[in-house]
């Protein structure tokens, strides 16, 4: 068990990347309001709109995780310009363009349902919940491509323990943020929003299941699911819900967006499985971004040691 040590700084105190990269603008702003005695934070707020101030913050003193792979990481550019985030458009390059001004300030994640201590978390509270770890995971999309990403976050079970699920809690339902005004392209996506996902409670408790707040040493870029998302590395990417606003513990299996859209193509479990054929894409192989030819896909995306036991006795062809 790791000893929890709450960081002293809050999310807003970390120097925004856009600020330290743009010192001239910062200095100019400083010149304008320099005479006024304001705090540094107040200065940021004056110099830049809040959503920019929250855009990219550096995380330091990250804990290395034993779950990390030593495989070659994909470039930051690939991971931020090849996204499926249909609220911001259905082309892979759309989210990078259209999520630029996505406002993630004053973010609240509501935890409710079958828990003894339901509560709402601010981003500052989430960041103090457990020591932040860097976890380098393989990420496999159902579209037969994959990437290796150094995520930042902590096991989701740290949050579960805090809210104390009741014995009735069998499943966890997740919901993404949806605002048609900020996400006008969402209406053309062809799927229903807000995006919803779910896990069985034991899957949610698995230490691999990551509550993710950053990647590549920084906070999450908007197109990658800012400011907080799930990462479930042994399942297809669409299970790893982005821009999380609601977590509900419940007795019933929750509905999931892609399953609602095409039930015989996307199941509730959606574990990475090279032996279960998908009507659209062969799941036997995948293209690691940056490579030309495809490589074989691994059972549970190579995480079978950590997760296979949860599915003992289950027919994974039926429970796809």
């Amino acid at each position, binding site marked *: 068990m790791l000893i929890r040590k709450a960081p002293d700084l809050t999310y807003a105190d970390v120097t925004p990347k856009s600020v330290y990269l743009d010192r001239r603008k910062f200095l100019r702003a400083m010149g304008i309001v320099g005479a006024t005695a304001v705090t540094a934070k107040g200065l940021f707020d004056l110099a830049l709109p809040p959503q920019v101030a929250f855009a990219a913050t550096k995380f330091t003193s990250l804990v290395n995780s034993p779950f990390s792979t030593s495989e070659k990481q*994909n470039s930051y*550019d*690939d*991971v931020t*310009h*090849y996204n499926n985030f*249909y609220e911001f458009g*259905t082309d*892979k*390059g759309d989210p990078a363009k259209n999520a630029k001004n996505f406002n993630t300030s004053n973010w609240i994640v509501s935890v409710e349902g079958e828990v003894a201590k339901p509560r709402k978390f601010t981003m500052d509270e989430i960041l103090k919940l457990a020591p932040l770890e860097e976890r380098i995971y393989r990420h496999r999309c159902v*579209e037969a*491509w994959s990437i290796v990403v150094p995520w930042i976050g902590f096991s989701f079970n740290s949050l579960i323990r805090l809210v104390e699920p009741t014995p009735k809690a069998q499943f966890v339902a997740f919901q993404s943020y949806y605002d048609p005004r900020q996400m006008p392209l969402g209406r*053309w*996506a*062809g*799927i229903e929003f807000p995006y919803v996902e779910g896990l069985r409670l034991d899957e949610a408790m698995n230490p691999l299941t990551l509550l993710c707040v950053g990647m590549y040493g920084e906070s999450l870029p908007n197109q990658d699911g800012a400011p907080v998302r799930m990462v479930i590395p042994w399942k297809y990417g669409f299970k790893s819900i982005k821009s999380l606003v609601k977590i509900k513990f419940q007795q019933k299996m929750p509905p999931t967006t892609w399953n609602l*859209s095409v039930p015989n193509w996307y199941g509730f479990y959606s574990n990475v499985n090279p032996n279960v*054929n998908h*009507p*659209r894409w*062969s799941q036997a192989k995948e*293209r690691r*971004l*940056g490579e*030309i*030819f*495809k490589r074989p896909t691994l059972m549970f995306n190579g995480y079978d040691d950590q997760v296979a036991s949860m599915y003992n006795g289950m027919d994974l062809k039926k429970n796809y």
Partner: protein
Amino acid sequence: MRALLTSKWTKAAVFLLCLVPLDALIWRALHNGLGANPVEFIQLTTGRWTLRFLIITLCITPFRKLLNLPDLIRFRRMFGLFAFFYVCLHFLTYLGPDQSFDLAAMWKDVAKRPFITVGFLGFLLLVPLAMTSTAGWIRRLGGKRWQMLHRAIYFAAVAGVIHYYWKVKSDVRMPLFYGALVAVLLLWRLWGWLSRRRSVVAAKLSSEGARAGAAR
């Protein structure tokens, strides 16, 4: 206008224009502009240009008649062959990077996945059309039979649209757009065919009526 359409320079210029999508791909490849998934980018681009060239080819006949520009016929074969050229590139990116040139694996995939099956059928339909596109083959087959054979382009275009429609996950706007264009071009032909038939039947009836009148 006539002089412009029949000039060999125009034909050369159009030929070079048809190569622009390929040039753009090569330029991007040399300048790191193919994005995170270059194979997919090339597949999408060549696939879309195949559909576009099929649609341009199908536009020639209606434009000749509606705009009274019969000389447009000079470009039809070239557009058709460019459609075939881009579908070959499209197919090669599938056979190579996707299937690692493994023909057995490719056949399994073609048989198993409906969107691949219909795309592959469309590709196969275009092969004999490209092969018989020369003047020699028109002579050998005879104009009527040659024309019958080349109506396969209608089915290839429809197959291309279905392939695209089944390929996208949920946002069907682009496939529907191309589908609408193909539908308009095919309906125009159907309408022409129906009205020609009607006039033939009418002519037959009136001539029969005249004969009956004469016999009386």
